[in-house]
């Protein structure tokens, strides 16, 4: 055991030399902070032992095939992360297939059924289907691994709470490795709000309505959103939980997690849709939202033609090519309760995750896990935050004041909003996963009509009832 430690520290040193030789010194803080003992390290590499300190062989070459979704966060951070990893472990190289349409490729490869041809690490999608088919490697143990810069803490201790909750595991395991989460809500032009003296942080539903009224009186559409992609969910999906608290409905979350009560026609859901319908009828939600994609709708907010747009925190990065230099995005969540004691539930969730394919050589999978852990070092997180505009997942990321100060205006605005308001980050997790054509039909029916409800063109109740009927069929089927 002792000799093993020695051997590995020697190895870290040689890896370090490689790393230092390879990089031209532009990486300020070195990620390798393990118990490297430099006094041992004068021997040449020929005597180097065959394993790294993580127990994996040094001389066996491994190529990790990655199916990477090139999306709002870009790929710069990932190229950087893989380069860092190869510098540190020269026997590990990467074969990256990056595309904004990677899901098409993944599902085709999955359906073709050739495990060898599949990526080792792939963008996380449809994971319950993959898990049901025994195609994914459980990642629960990754959360017990220690990132190199974590001061000996496990990933589980270092990650923002909510991403490794055993009660929310699917089939007893965690299958997704989180890369970034999103904060949903209303996004607006700081300057427009300041110039008009509008309330940037309404505490109650009535205050929010008053804000909409104030905006309307200036001849500006209070809210526009992407009806084509149903982006209203980012602001309003979590409002049922606020109403449930107001109603004293203690069973609501339990029903929500297990589909054991009415879903679309619960008192809370009906109330949310009625209020939205009402807002639509009053003209608070622009009718132009219906056929709009999200860049179009966000563009209207950029131009001051609409005041607020429901979206996620990626909005700043997404719109950077079109935003004027001095434009500053602001953030608020929508309160749906009139009781200031009821916390505002902010829509929050995974916006980017990886999964590991199960039927792969053990060594490949072990390296894949090592690599994923390396993505949650603060060094990689920093690039993801800077270049990708993501919100950091490491809870100690902000401890460094320089890093916190470096955040973008929108990220700061979100942080400020959260600290000044009584908020809850709502992940909307469920314990039961429904997977049937009826379930899809139910959601399709409601989603297809959402834009018409929100713009006050269609009454919600009949649509919710039809959605509920289809959903209960799916629930019954699942119960069999």
């Amino acid at each position, binding site marked *: 055991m002792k000799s093993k430690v020695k051997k590995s520290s020697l190895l870290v040193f040689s890896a370090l030399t490689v790393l230092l030789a390879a990089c031209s010194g532009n990486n300020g803080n070195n990620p390798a902070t393990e118990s490297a003992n430099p006094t041992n390290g004068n021997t040449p590499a020929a005597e180097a032992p065959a394993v790294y300190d993580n127990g994996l062989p040094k001389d066996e070459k491994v190529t990790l095939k990655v199916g990477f979704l090139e999306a709002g966060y870009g790929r710069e951070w990932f190229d950087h992360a893989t380069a860092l990893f190869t510098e540190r472990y020269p026997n590990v190289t990467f074969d990256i297939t990056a595309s904004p349409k990677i*899901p*098409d490729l993944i*599902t085709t490869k*999955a*359906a073709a059924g050739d495990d060898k041809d599949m990526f080792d690490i792939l963008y996380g*999608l*449809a994971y319950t*289907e*993959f898990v*049901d*088919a025994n*195609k994914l490697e459980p990642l629960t143990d990754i959360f017990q691994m220690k990132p190199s810069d974590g001061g000996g803490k496990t990933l589980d201790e270092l990650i923002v709470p909510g991403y490794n909750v055993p009660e929310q595991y699917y089939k007893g395991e965690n299958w997704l490795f989180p890369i970034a989460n999103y904060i949903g809500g209303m996004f607006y032009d700081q300057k427009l709000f300041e110039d008009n003296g509008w309330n940037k942080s309404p505490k109650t539903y009535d205050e929010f309505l008053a804000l909409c009224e104030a905006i309307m009186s200036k001849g500006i559409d209070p809210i526009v959103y992407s*009806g*084509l*992609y*149903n982006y209203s*969910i980012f602001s309003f999906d979590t409002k049922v939980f606020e109403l449930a608290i107001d109603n004293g409905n203690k069973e609501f979350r339990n029903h929500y997690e297990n589909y054991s009560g009415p879903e679309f026609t619960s008192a809370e859901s009906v109330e949310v849709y009625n209020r939205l319908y009402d807002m639509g009828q009053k003209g608070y939600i622009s*009718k*132009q*939202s*219906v*056929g*709009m994609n999200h860049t179009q709708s966000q563009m*209207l907010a950029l131009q001051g*033609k609409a005041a607020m747009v429901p979206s996620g925190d990626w909005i700043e990065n997404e719109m950077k090519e079109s935003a004027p230099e001095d434009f500053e995005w602001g953030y608020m969540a929508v309160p749906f309760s009139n009781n200031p004691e009821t916390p505002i539930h902010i829509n929050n969730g995974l916006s980017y995750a990886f999964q590991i394919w199960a039927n792969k050589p053990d060594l490949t999978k072990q390296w894949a896990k090592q690599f994923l852990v390396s993505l949650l070092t603060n060094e990689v997180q920093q690039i993801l935050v800077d270049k990708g505009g993501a919100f950091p997942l490491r809870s100690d990321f902000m401890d460094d004041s320089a890093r916190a100060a470096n955040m973008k205006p929108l990220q700061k605005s979100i942080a400020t909003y959260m600290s000044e308001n009584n908020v809850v980050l709502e992940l909307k997790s469920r314990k039961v996963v429904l*997977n049937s*054509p009826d*379930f*899809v*039909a139910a*959601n*399709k029916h409601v*989603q*297809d*009509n959402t*834009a*018409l409800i929100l713009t006050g*063109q*269609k009454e919600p109740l009949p649509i919710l009832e039809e959605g509920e009927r289809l959903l209960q069929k799916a629930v019954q089927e699942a119960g069999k």
Partner: protein
Amino acid sequence: MKTLTRTNIHIQKTVFLLLAVLPPFAAYVLFTLYPNVLSIYYSFLDWNGIGEKKYIGLDNYIRLFQDPVVLNALKHNLILVATVIPITLIISLVLADLLVNRQYKENKFYKVLFFFPNVLSLVVIALIWSFIYDGTFGLLNSVLRVLGIGGDHNWLGSPKTALASTIPLYVWCYVGFYVVIFMNAMSAIPKTIYESATLDGITSFQRFTKITLPLMSGIIRVGMIFLMLNVIKGFEYMFIMTKGGPGGATEVISLYMFNLAFGTESLSQHFYGYASTIGMLIFVLLVLLKVVIDKVFSKDSVEF
């Protein structure tokens, strides 16, 4: 001069057929027919394209006949077939005739220009038309405002006008294609036929209806069938511009099938089996429509 014996010709013919027909036909069977036959098999499965394939007999077919989305989508497909096909054919025949049989000096330029929509990617065509129909700054609304009639309607965003708004888009794209087909077919009609007719003192309208159209009925029928196939199989514009919305107003059958097989942004579940069943429905529908078109044009000699 050689004389070819009967066997000699026979051998030559066999060699020709083996070389010319066999390899591409084998490739056709392998790459086109076989995958399609597989989807007949898929249509009896509960399969998400990932996990185990579960045989469920006729369940998918029963679902198909009870699925209101299917009915809604088919209705829209039929509306499109009934409008897009005749409008496209009439416009392209007239334009082709004008280009081929009239000697306007600008024709040379038009011959290239009219084909243009075909080389633009679908995405860009969708983009252009989205801007035409846009509710705030759209071209159509700008024009209407100038004329003083309305001008604030969200064309693709209203259930009443969304489907109808896609018709001009289809016509605009397809006309260029069929103008070229018809132009080339018209060019192949021997000039002597027209010349003798002109001597008989026939008007150009009569020339068009009495000579050109009958001579081209074969190609027109082919064009009709292809348009029908395109309109029913195609879903790209809806996919980009409306996602079948609002409220299902532009849902078409192939879009529904595609979304079931590949998932959508918000619901990433896959139903390969059921999607294949819808594929079977589309197949039957296409064959039926083809038979109808054949019945209408029964006099023609072109077989297929």
